[in-house]
């Protein structure tokens, strides 16, 4: 059986009709059509699917889409300004070599934003801890940590 719900993604209302077992990630990617958030492990280990739900981080592969009915979802696409200008964290990831294959990047950026929103000037230890729910197989993390530091100290 399908149920009606309205997801507010990056400020736009999307009415959807979905089965109870559907994950928030699959609905964002398929019904809403925003493919920034990624399915990595599909098991809540890697953080590639991380989005904000009412401003708080959630691994969207493991959250029921129907529970997001009427709530605000922010994906990586929502970090970019209306004019297409990159968020300072996005630019820093590019500048500091924080992106290689790019698969972990959307989740990394969401995690980094959550960190900086609560802790504007984190130590390297705090950055590494905050991002340790997000796995990256390419960069060795150094470029990612540098990117977050550059925005924090800026």
């Amino acid at each position, binding site marked *: *059986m399908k*149920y009606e719900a309205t997801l507010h993604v990056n400020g736009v209302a999307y009415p959807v009709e979905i*089965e*109870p*077992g*559907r*994950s928030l990630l699959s609905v964002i990617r398929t019904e809403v059509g925003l493919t920034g958030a990624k399915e990595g492990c*599909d*098991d*809540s*280990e890697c*953080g590639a699917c*991380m989005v904000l*739900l009412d401003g*708080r*981080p*959630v*691994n969207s*592969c*493991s*959250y*029921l889409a*129907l*529970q997001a*009915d009427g709530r605000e979802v922010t994906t990586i696409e929502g970090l970019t300004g209306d004019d297409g200008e990159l968020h300072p964290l996005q630019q820093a990831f590019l500048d500091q070599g924080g992106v290689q294959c790019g698969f972990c990047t959307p989740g990394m950026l969401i*995690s980094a934003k*959550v*960190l900086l929103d609560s802790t504007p000037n984190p130590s390297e*230890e705090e950055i*590494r*801890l*905050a991002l*340790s*729910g*997000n796995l990256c197989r390419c960069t060795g993390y150094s470029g990612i940590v540098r990117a977050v530091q550059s925005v924090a100290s800026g």
Partner: protein
Amino acid sequence: MSAATYTAAGSVEEALAALAAGARPVAGGTDLVVGARNGKAALPESLVAIHRLSDLGGIREQDGGLVLGALATHADIVASQPVCDRYTALADASAIVGSHATRSTGTIGGNVMNASPAMETGGPLICFGAVARFRSAGGEREVPLAELFAGPGRTTASPEELLTEVALPAPAAGTGSCYARLEYRRQMEIAIVGATAVVTLDGGTVSDARIAITALAPTIHRVAEAESALNGTDGAADAVAAAANAAAAASQPITDVRGSAEYRRAMAAVIARRAITTALARARGERFPIPASPALHGAVNGGAA
């Protein structure tokens, strides 16, 4: 993933009616949905979402103790000053659940009712004498946490009962506590081995010791031999070692993907010792970071304790 029907309860009464009709509750879904996605257990046929029940949220003072609403998240618990000050081991535990995404989404109610023998908050809740409060269409019931866990993933609650609150009695003056775990990864991890210590000092003597082991038996439980090894002592190193060894001797670990029984048994005394040492230090008024685990593993300040 299955789940044929879904309803989002608008009141506790609606949720209770749905449970009585056979639905199963979902709050943050960080265990239920993850378990379904990795094939551990399919989603229930019928789901009642309880995330909108604001009556079940929050943390409040009651009779000198604290009441955790079932929907209080781990992030709420870590952010609570009374928890950090008086129930420090619980803060240690909630602070290392999952990642910040898990802690923002996962609830204490779901954590308790998932009844994992490796759950971080179980040992602290048992040692603090927590009581689970249930409601069902038939009435209300209170169950001490120590009597709630029946086995891995099993509780003594019946399916139509909804956990609404977890009540923590006031700890005695002079109490310090710590939860420590062995971990391979800083986040998105659960205990390989865990230990909780809640100790009360009276004039430098341990007047009450509560020690529980995690991921070392089918259920998290206190170890009376470890507690009596510490009770009445001044908490010196030999007494701490005796208590930690007694905790390890009570373990019945299993071998699984996260560790062998031999490794768990070998690490049990180490982790128990770290928890007891830190709880004693906190009881003496010494500051120790929350969560304790990273510092105890030497990741933050060069290997205290």
